[in-house]
């Protein structure tokens, strides 16, 4: 049995606290495989970073004393993260997971200096010999949420709180809007960009602003439950958990959730590294692989609406439904995808336009 001790071991200046989980019984002949995590938010954000924290704990459970994890929280997406990455590499971490988009350039730079350290960058697009990327097809989950919203919205006005207009977030907005408008073509989606992943007070104010202007469903692509709590307080139809099940914060308004499950990917990476078979590639599984999980449906949602959402989910799993199937027209009126065609992965990663119905 592994005894876990969590202690705030090292402080990296303004980067915040470093949380070390050390297996006390560890240290075999070669010592444990050291693994570092660099995160943009605190592990207690109730969302994105929390998902990685849960996966890190799953790794502990899976590999026990064979690994030793250092989990660094609240590292800004800027030059500071370069220092944290380098420090982790110098401390002997052999695999470093950088879990936010904005770390990308710095990961590539530091990876060049440490060719025998393996870097894995979440939601990124730049790879090199020792840098792989991984992501999850969250937009598949967004399509399921959009189906629910299309059936449930009465004002046909849906508010969407976004962090930064990067492809991952834009994809989510578009997949959500396409699915919602497939049910009800009159729906419009108003996007509020916050330029932050973690500012709960501002997320709440954005939700208030959207609801005051007629939105009856709020979607958020920031890392916490603040918007859902406002939805609950105002008694609108509801919103969705992002990254984790957030129903504790909004029992009446939490319609469903997109839950990130990173453990399968992390376990695979470590097995590959242990076996010496790791190669740099891009891992991008979705609902079918169990990395994107749809949370429980709120009991107030009618059974036929749940069935419609489940049908979309089943279609995505068996491949009969692609969230980005043409005809797709952008919000300036240009046809982007002809009828019957879909967008390939490269096209998704280059997405810098919004579908019809999005006001952003």
């Amino acid at each position: 049995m592994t005894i876990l001790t969590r202690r705030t071991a090292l402080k990296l200046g303004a980067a915040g606290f470093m949380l070390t989980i050390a297996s006390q019984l560890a240290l075999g002949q070669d010592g444990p495989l050291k693994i570092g995590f660099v995160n943009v938010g605190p592990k207690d954000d109730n969302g994105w970073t929390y998902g990685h924290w849960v996966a890190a704990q799953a790794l502990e459970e899976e590999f026990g004393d064979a690994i030793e994890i250092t989990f660094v929280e609240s590292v800004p997406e800027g030059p500071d993260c370069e220092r944290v990455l380098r420090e982790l590499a110098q401390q002997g971490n052999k695999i470093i997971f950088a879990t936010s988009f904005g770390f990308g350039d710095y990961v590539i730079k530091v990876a060049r200096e440490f060719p025998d350290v393996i870097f894995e960058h979440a939601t990124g697009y730049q790879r090199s010999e020792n840098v792989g990327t991984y992501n999850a097809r969250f937009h598949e989950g967004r399509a399921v949420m959009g189906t629910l919203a299309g059936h449930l919205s009465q004002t046909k006005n849906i508010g969407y709180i976004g962090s930064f207009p990067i492809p991952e977030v834009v994809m989510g907005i578009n997949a959500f809007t396409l699915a919602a408008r497939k049910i009800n073509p009159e729906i419009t989606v108003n996007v509020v960009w916050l330029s932050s992943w973690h500012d709960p007070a501002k997320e709440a104010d954005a939700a208030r602003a959207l609801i005051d202007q007629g939105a009856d469903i709020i979607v958020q692509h920031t890392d916490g439950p603040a918007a859902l709590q406002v939805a609950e307080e105002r008694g609108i139809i509801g919103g969705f958990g992002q990254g984790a099940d957030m129903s504790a914060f909004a029992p009446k308004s939490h319609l469903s959730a997109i839950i990130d499950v990173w453990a399968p990917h992390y376990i695979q990476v470590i097995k590959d590294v242990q076996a010496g078979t790791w190669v740099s590639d891009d891992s991008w599984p979705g609902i079918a692989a169990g990395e994107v999980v749809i949370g429980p449906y709120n009991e107030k949602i009618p059974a036929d609406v749940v069935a419609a959402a489940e049908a979309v989910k089943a279609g995505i799993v068996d491949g009969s439904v692609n969230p980005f199937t043409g005809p797709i027209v952008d919000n300036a009126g240009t046809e982007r995808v002809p009828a019957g065609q879909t967008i390939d992965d490269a096209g998704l990663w280059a997405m810098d336009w919004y579908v019809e119905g999005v006001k952003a």
Partner: protein
Amino acid sequence: MNPDLLIPIIITLVGASTPILIAGLGELVVEKSGVLNLGVEGMMLIGAVVAFAVTYTTGNHWLAILCAALAATAASMIFAFLTLTLSASQVATGLALTIFGTGFSALFGQAYTGKPIAIFDSVFPDELENHPFWRVVFDHSPLVFFSLFMVVAVWWFLNKSRAGLILRAVGENDFSAHSIGYSVIKVRYAAVAFGGAMAGIAGSCFPLLLTPQWAERLTAGRGWIALALVVFAAWRPFRLLAGAYLFGLVMTIEVYTKASGSMGLFPSEFWAALPYLATIIVLVLISLRRSGNSAAPACLGKPFMPGQ
């Protein structure tokens, strides 16, 4: 923008302004006594986590605010001991207090993550709170009325009371105040304690008024805005009120404009930068008018060492 939105916008902007106003009033008194405490953000986080914990445990919002004030005051006393008794650098100690508060609140808050509490809502009857027009006055948390009362109270204290005059004398010329028999150190201890209590109450606004959850770094830098506001307000309580509401207005207009889907010519980054742009413009206007004569207390940030 739709005129019906005016009242919701005012209610939202008052909420957004309240924590920076309360924290700013506390720091204003601290700075008037000649002490610069850069630990506002840290003390606010301590106040926020304690307020959350007490509300979660007891359900009593008033007790939560009291405990938040006491906890942040305790933290401010560490700062006071180091800077006033031991004459450590105020800038370095204040920054350390912010880092301490951030870490302490994260550690203490671990047990409270993922748990909801009830918001500290208006205490007026429902007819007033939900009235289409009068809710602009009544649909506010008691914390909002506290902040407005404190503007008047701090103004009266600094300008009309004997104790306030002594505090200002200590901040303007510590040696003179010392030579006529006032205890500079004791006055500054009291000012720092007041600043700590106010920062704690300001922190309690986050879980009690704005977003009823605990998350690390919940205040997201509002403590620094409060510090800037004190300079912005030229150390005057009513100007601080105006400045806090101006900041709240800009932050609120930003989200409402974006939410209307009609931000038109300007990209979202412009709206996010607007509060800071407004700060620069107002600071330039103030400095043009005053032509070089600074409003800052003369002894601000200087340690008092009468033995030398």
